[in-house]
């Protein structure tokens, strides 16, 4: 478009032409832009939809417990496998035992007394684990000295869980048998369990396979290491083939009731 044209020289027509061309281009641009805008919006929408969809898929993928299995290291998976193996073996044993008993009982030749004898043996085993009977067997005795009274109830909670991980079948702390409802309270240098309060000297007895129990406590960075870092605390583990723990009274349900 000639720009140097002097408007005086018949410029009106040229000017008009310029104007109309400008208007035409402007309107073209407007149309082009709105079309462009529509395409832009459309593509943005589709893009965001896809992103959203992918985000949700990824989120869900991470959430499932199965997925979390794949995030575990070999070592952790090995620990889990070991635990489940032990449990499965135990379950199979019990299943076989009970199956045998059912078969025996169903055969007419089995006498009712036999069934009852078996039942009593099972009952006693149950009572044993439940803490209702005095129990004895191989295990370990852990003697903990805490002269400066720095230990807390939560240290004992950790200790008990380590013992159970090691397969402890019965545990007693300073002569107090632990059962399914035992908790460690106290504080300020005292640790209480089942209403009895102790401090400074603790004797924890556990029945189970002594090597497993000892190993559970003496793992590198394990509970023994942790406890002995506290000032003045000493931990001594003695293996014994005859540990005895007392019984306790059967608990009653006051607030709850059994679901049949």
């Amino acid at each position, binding site marked *: 478009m000639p720009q140097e044209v002097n408007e005086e020289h018949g410029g009106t027509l040229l000017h008009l032409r310029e104007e109309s061309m400008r208007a035409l281009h402007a309107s073209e641009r407007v149309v082009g832009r709105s079309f462009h805008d529509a395409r832009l919006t459309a593509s943005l929408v589709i893009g965001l939809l896809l992103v959203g969809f992918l985000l949700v898929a990824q989120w869900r993928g991470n959430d499932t417990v199965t997925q979390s299995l794949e995030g*575990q290291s070999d070592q952790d998976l090995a620990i889990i496998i070991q635990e489940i193996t032990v449990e499965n073996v135990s379950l199979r044993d019990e*299943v076989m035992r009970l199956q045998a008993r*059912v078969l025996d009982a169903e055969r007419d030749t089995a006498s009712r007394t036999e069934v009852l004898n078996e039942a009593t043996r099972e009952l006693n085993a149950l009572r044993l684990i439940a803490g*209702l009977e005095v129990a004895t067997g191989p295990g370990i005795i852990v003697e903990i000295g805490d002269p400066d009274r720095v230990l807390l109830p939560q240290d004992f909670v950790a200790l008990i869980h380590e013992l159970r991980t090691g397969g402890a079948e019965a545990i007693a702390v300073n002569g107090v048998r632990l059962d399914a409802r035992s908790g460690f309270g106290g504080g300020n240098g005292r640790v209480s369990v089942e209403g009895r309060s102790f401090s400074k000297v603790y004797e924890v007895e556990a029945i189970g396979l002594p090597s497993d129990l000892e190993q559970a406590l003496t793992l590198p960075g394990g509970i023994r290491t942790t406890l002995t870092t506290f000032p003045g605390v000493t931990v001594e583990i003695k293996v014994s083939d005859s540990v005895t723990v007392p019984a306790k009274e059967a608990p009653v349900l006051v*607030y709850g009731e059994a679901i049949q």
Partner: protein
Amino acid sequence: MKNPLRQPALVVVIGILGFMLAMAFNTTTRLQGAQPERASDLASVVQDMEAQRDSLEIRLAGLRDEVTALEEIAATEQGIRDSFTQQIEVARLAAGLTGVKGPGVSVVLGDGSDVIPGTDPNLYLIHDSDIAAVVNALFVGGAEAVDVNGERVVATTPIRCAGSTVLVNARRLGGPYTVNAVGDSDALYESVVDDPAAGLLFEAYRTQFGLDVSVTRLDEVEVSAYRGSFRPTYAVQAEEEDV
């Protein structure tokens, strides 16, 4: 105008690039073929075993019922049914083989979100020790029965972790963790929030790390029965003189 893209050097080098890609691909395929990913092998082993365990537990529950029924028959015939059944009930209750329902509390423990970059992400996670602390506080508060995500806590229950998974009764649990307890709701509530170890989860740690935790008093809460095995292998009943 000649297509500016037709540069012989470019063509050749792109060809070489393709070849290199294929080489890398070949190597990786070979590696994978020789050594199947072990992690996924172990993971499927875990899943198989858990499936076995589940079916074993179901079987066990069924057998226990059958045996109980048979014992009842035998006891009836011997005329001692009532006392025998009662003894069994007492033992099952004490051991945790019965589900319990009644007033109590429900504690939910979930990981915190909004991890501040640069801080230790472990601080924002719920650990096995946190769950153990809550369970302990509940017992101190007089809980008569406690379970974690449906796993009943009994005298032999360990609460531990393997990597980032929490194991209770050898079962893998994932967050958020629901701990239900039956007992005096108010006593349980106070015991948990005032507990020196567990209480922190609901106060300082909750605000600091955004942990998704709560304690709710309920008029009725159900605690599951223990489904695992009970088999004293080393412990035996002591004679009276040993006490």
